[in-house]
């Protein structure tokens, strides 16, 4: 499981102290993690591809752009990479601020390695889940986009009124015959690769815009 994850995900380490960068990278690499280290937030932003899965191990007290600022920049860019803060200053207020802004964890240096590893593992899992969800959302969206206007109209009606999904009622509402509704319903289920209207309603939660 870990092997699988580590082979796909990367730990992006940002710390201005080269001793920390060297030793932390080495220790994680020894533990079979993919590690890429950066000396500043700017360098990271220059080189990072959001498509790469992984998590960020971010020093809080960076010069120029500090950890919190980077967190904000990433949020603004809608890059959802999980962030683990590490800080030599400790500081409850800082950690509270970081966590509020969506950080996975806030570790005071020196931290126990298993804590960091657990955090990274959890972050990877969260990242993967998020990416999978995103993928599902995208494919569902894609499938929905294959529906014709009439089919989308019928699907929307059924999603909006889960208790009135009988063909007769849908037909009366949309002023078409129940048979035609039946025909469209079969096409919708086929196109979306599902077997029931209940599944359609579940799917609709994944996508934001159906129209």
């Amino acid at each position, binding site marked *: 499981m870990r092997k699988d994850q580590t082979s796909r995900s990367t730990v992006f380490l940002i710390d201005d*102290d080269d001793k920390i960068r060297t030793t932390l990278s080495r*220790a994680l690499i020894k*533990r079979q993690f993919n590690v890429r280290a950066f000396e500043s937030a700017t360098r990271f932003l220059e080189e990072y591809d959001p498509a790469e899965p992984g998590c960020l191990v971010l020093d809080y007290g960076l010069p120029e752009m500090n950890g919190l600022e980077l967190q904000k920049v990433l949020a603004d860019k809608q890059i959802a990479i999980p962030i683990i803060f590490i800080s*030599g200053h400790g500081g409850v207020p800082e950690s509270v601020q970081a966590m509020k802004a969506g950080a996975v964890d806030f570790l005071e*240096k020196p*931290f126990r390695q298993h804590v960091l590893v657990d955090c990274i593992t959890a972050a990877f899992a969260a990242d993967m889940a998020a990416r999978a969800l995103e993928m599902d959302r995208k494919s569902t969206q894609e499938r929905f986009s294959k529906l014709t206007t009439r089919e989308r109209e019928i699907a929307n009606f059924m999603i909006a009124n889960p208790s009135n999904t009988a063909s007769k009622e849908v037909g009366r509402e949309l002023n078409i015959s129940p048979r035609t509704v039946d025909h469209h319903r079969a096409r919708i289920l086929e196109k979306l690769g599902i077997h029931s209207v209940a599944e359609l309603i579940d799917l609709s939660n994944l996508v934001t815009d159906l129209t």
Partner: protein
Amino acid sequence: MRYSLGFILAISLAGLQFLAIIIVVSTSFVSSERAMLDHARGLMRDAGLNAVDHTKRFLEPARESADLASRILQSEVVSTADPAEMERYLFRHLQSKAQLSGIYYGDEAGNFVYVMRSNGPGPYRTKFVAIDGEERTTELIWRTEDFSVVERVFDPEDIFDPRGRQWYINASTAKAGVWTSPYIFFSSQQPGITVAAPVLQSNGALEGVVGVDIEIAEISEFLSGLAIGTEGAAIILSDSAEVIAHPDQTQISVEDADGTLGFAQIDDLGDPIARTALADFNPAAVSAQGSMQSEFAYQGDRFMTLLLPISGIDLPWTIAVFAPENDFIQGIKDNRRRNTWIAAIISLVTAAVGVLLAELILRPVRAFAVRTALVSQGEVSTNAPLPRTYQELRKANQTLIHEIAQRRDADRKVEELSRDMSHFSRVNVMGQMATGLAHELSQPLTAITQNVDAAITVAKLDPNPNAELLSILTELDEQAHQGGDIIRALRGFVRKDEGKAEHFDLSELIAQTSRLMHNETDTHGVTINTQLAPLPPAIGNRVQIAQVLINLMRNAVDAMVGAASTPKQIVITARQNGDKIEVWVDDTGPGVAKDVTLFKQFQTSKPDGLGLGLSISRSIIEANAGHLWYDRTGADRSRFCFTVPCETT
């Protein structure tokens, strides 16, 4: 201003007053002096003309008498052949003309009839000289007013011959009426003059000459009665510069060397002023010009002279009038002196009034000045009632009180800030040292734990792991973490209340911290300028931000003094940038070398520095949700920048 207002006022008032009076007095003096001198000349001319007129009137009867007698004798109304008849006629004539002293007739034969006033046995005396061939008879008869004889004597000794006398010769030569030169009468010893008129026969030949004597002492009496000023005098001079009339008659006649009496010359006069006045007397010029005016000075006094010819009666005489100018203008001079004194006294009085006035004017000003001084020293409350003073000062007072209140308020705020800051830095430096140490130690400790972890991982990879090595590494890991725990404990222990964020005026704070730096900047000749855009209220801990400003300014001063830069200038700029205020602290120092790591704790370029200033500043700014950095872009300055959150509208 070197002189007091009172002094200036007094001097100005007195000076202006004095000047005004002197100008008025002197102009009126000059004009009145001129007028008076003109008037004086008029007076002198009047006196001179008066004397001329009088002289002419005085002498006219003598001439008329001579003419009348000559006509009567010539027309044979009275026969020249009858001495007795002639005597009666001459007697009656003399009796009727009081000013004549004698009248007489001499003929070509040497006969002579002479009637004159006498002091002898009778009031009149007649002298007969009868020539009969070689025989000569001289008879003297004294008569009373009614022509009766008092005494009759013969004078055989007498040798008088009219034909040899000057009056006879002149009249016979001119065949007309003539005046003789004046002379001193032998008998009366009085000055006199004779007018003679010829008696001609029908064929034009001379028969005889009538003569009339008139004493001119009366003219001198008239002159003495003439008023010309108080010291002026008039004298009459003949064409040979003899003094023939003088207010003092005794001056006229002098005894000649041969014992006879003659007229005084100008040089014989006892009066030196008259001598000076007439030194250049030139009768010809006077009669040619009609009248002559001149001035002269004698012993410092000025005199005026007027010379007038006596015209109309063929007499070559001149009337000289002279008088000291002071006779006429002494009053004016006295007046001027008096006025000058009055001017001086008025000026002194005015000066005194000026001093009093200035004192009066100044009293409220002085009271105000004293009060202002006391207020500014804080000894009198600004609310204390204002002394009675001027409206202008009342306004100035309001401004001043306002200013003082503002300044005191500013001083109080700066003092408060200083107090708060010293408290803050006392508490804070300890904490900063601790947190700084904690941070510094946490880095190597982290490196140790990472290396231990790597080592353990590597050791475990061995199919036959060295248990002892693993145990040592695990212990090492544990000990490093114990170190970390201690640091955490220390950090927790010193972590103190960071203070609450508040809204504050950053511009005001910059001004206040600049003032706090004055002592240091003044000592080192550093100037601080601020360029502050209008700023919204900043959000943060005011005292902490002040500490950062002080730290940055102090660094700037140290850098410029260390490098002996010129000029030494700090410029603080603040402007809003979105939800932050950006502050630049620029200095004209050498800047920070490229290889220096800024903001690192315990690193310093100062010989006596802790190396905490910049790192504390940065942590303070970051604790206040701001950012502190060094801007390397400027070539001619060194710039530290920081941001502070602010209100956005």
